């Protein structure tokens, strides 16, 4: 899978109509749930070639658009046009689609590019104005069909919202294996699940580095919890810290170091260390409280974290030098934890415990505008998507003791379950979109 990242995908931009004249633009707004845009994604047209791309690309795009929370993809059983129809020869009728109430239409043509490669042209049609409004051509080997579907899905998101989508990114998480927890990664639609560690131990609190090539995590490999990194290409594991103190919650800082919580005696502190494990700075020293779960602002000037310095655990924000810590979680709960600072910097997501378990909240970094996103079941461990539009978290979906992963839009709409394991999936972390 990861070797795909190394393969160069040739992308030619086909400007079929001048992009300035696009009428379909801006029907969707980036914020707010709004109306779901009705769209159809029929099978691709194959010209002089046989390929599973015909079905697999539209199916993957359908899953992606469904997850996005912006589109309503019409069920393919309803389509009037025959599947895989090539529009050039026998003319395709926009009326076959407008009559179904569809406003957007994704079509594509697959031909041979020679040398076993495929040339795949993808188009987005505006059914109402009867025009192609977006076109891309991809050349790739047949093993990269999902990648092409992800790339065109991201183009569709960019076309409608001005911000590229997150398709092709992955989520790391811990999953129960027997009585232990191992590290896993999966695609954001829950497909392609891979177990990374097999320590027969506890591998928890994973997070991604900036380029998406490494995961940081805490492992009890040698009985004592220390920070390790996992290289996703080479599968090599590197031990970063090596001492008897508890180290947990490691994350890459904007300047390429690592921030984590370190406990010595009954003193736990937010500490920065280098990528080789050397302690750089103790940011919360000597307050005799639990300080844990640091999350840097994207600009690197502030850190959100959890502290019980005033009694119960609450979310605080401090300057990156450790000064000026202020509580920001005031939502009528005596237990608020798990802050994650959005990639855009404008929101912090966290959880608070209520009568019926944890719920997700967002808040401005100054503590204003608190908003509860979930109210059903138990919802924990939130992590932002790289575009700041979604949050992945673990949930029991209000019905069982088994936790699985879910994603939700940042306004609390369109919650979707993305993992369905029976042993329990926890503590997801959303990785960057591959270039």
């Amino acid at each position: 899978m990861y070797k795909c990242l190394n393969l160069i995908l040739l992308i030619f931009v086909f400007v079929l109509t001048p992009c300035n004249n696009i009428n379909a633009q801006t029907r969707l707004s980036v914020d707010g749930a709004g109306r779901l845009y009705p769209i159809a994604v029929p099978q691709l047209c194959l010209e002089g070639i046989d390929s599973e791309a015909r079905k697999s690309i539209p199916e993957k795009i359908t899953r992606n658009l469904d997850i996005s929370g912006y589109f309503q993809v019409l069920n393919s059983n309803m389509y009037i046009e025959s599947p895989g129809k090539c529009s050039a020869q026998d003319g395709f009728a926009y009326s076959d689609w407008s009559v179904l109430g569809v406003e957007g239409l994704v079509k594509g043509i697959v031909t041979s590019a020679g040398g076993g490669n495929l040339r795949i042209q993808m188009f987005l049609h505006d059914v109402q104005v009867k025009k192609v409004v977006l076109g891309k051509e991809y050349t790739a080997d047949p093993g990269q069909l999902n990648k092409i579907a992800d790339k065109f899905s991201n183009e569709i998101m960019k076309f409608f919202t001005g911000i590229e989508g997150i398709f092709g990114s992955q989520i790391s998480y811990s999953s129960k294996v027997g009585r232990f927890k191992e590290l896993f990664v999966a695609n954001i639609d829950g497909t392609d699940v891979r177990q990374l560690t097999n320590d027969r131990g506890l591998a928890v609190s994973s997070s991604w580095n900036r380029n998406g090539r490494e995961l940081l995590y805490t492992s009890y490999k040698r009985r004592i919890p220390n920070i390790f990194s996992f290289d996703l290409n080479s599968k090599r594991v590197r031990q970063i810290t090596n001492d008897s103190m508890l180290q947990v919650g490691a994350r890459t800082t904007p300047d390429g170091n690592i921030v984590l919580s370190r406990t010595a005696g009954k003193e736990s502190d937010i500490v920065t260390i280098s990528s080789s494990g050397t302690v750089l700075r103790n940011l919360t020293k000597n307050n005799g409280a639990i300080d844990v779960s640091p999350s840097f602002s994207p600009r690197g000037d502030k850190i959100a974290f959890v502290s019980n310095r005033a009694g119960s655990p609450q979310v605080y924000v401090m300057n990156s030098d450790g000064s000026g810590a202020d509580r920001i979680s005031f939502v009528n709960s005596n237990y608020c934890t798990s802050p994650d600072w959005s990639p855009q910097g404008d929101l912090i997501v966290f959880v608070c415990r209520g009568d019926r378990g944890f719920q997700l909240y967002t808040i401005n970094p100054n503590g204003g505008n608190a908003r509860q996103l979930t109210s059903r079941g138990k919802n924990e461990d939130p992590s932002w998507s790289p575009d700041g539009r979604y949050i992945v978290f673990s949930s029991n979906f209000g019905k069982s003791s088994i936790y699985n992963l879910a994603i939700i839009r940042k306004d609390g709409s369109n919650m979707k379950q993305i993992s369905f394991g029976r042993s329990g999936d926890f503590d997801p972390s959303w990785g960057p979109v591959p270039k």
Partner: protein
Amino acid sequence: MTLIKSATLIKSACRSGFLVLLVSLLFGCSCRTRNVGPGDSNSNISTATSGVYGEDGIQIPELSDIYFNFDSYVLSGTARQQANTAAEWLQANDHINVVLEGHCDERGTAEYNMVLGANRARSVYEHLRSLGVDSSRMSTVSYGEELPLDPGHDESAWSLNRRVHFDIN
């Protein structure tokens, strides 16, 4: 079940060494292994053999688990009495080293509970040290909420899981 238990007992007894076995026989305690986790007897055997996590193994009544309130690492009156008993036993058996394992119930947040468990273990450690147990004989580790003794989801399970466990393997 009995077969598994006795097999595990023999293995862990061998691993723990003759001394521990002798000590426990002298003190007349009933040596038993505990099956951790539901339906997990196979991994129990290999865990006991590999000794990654010291839940199972020989148990000394004087070193029974010490319990805590929710989100607390303060020793209650009962907890103090238990810790006093443990201190006496450890001083009478000064060749035994102990790992203090801090555990939490599932209701908190995993990362926070990691630290909470560490503080629970440290509270017991400090109390034992104040009673004269040599600190070189004790170490602490926290498993947070990750290895519950009781897999249930009610207060009776939670109260059993908020504990410090003495591991003498």
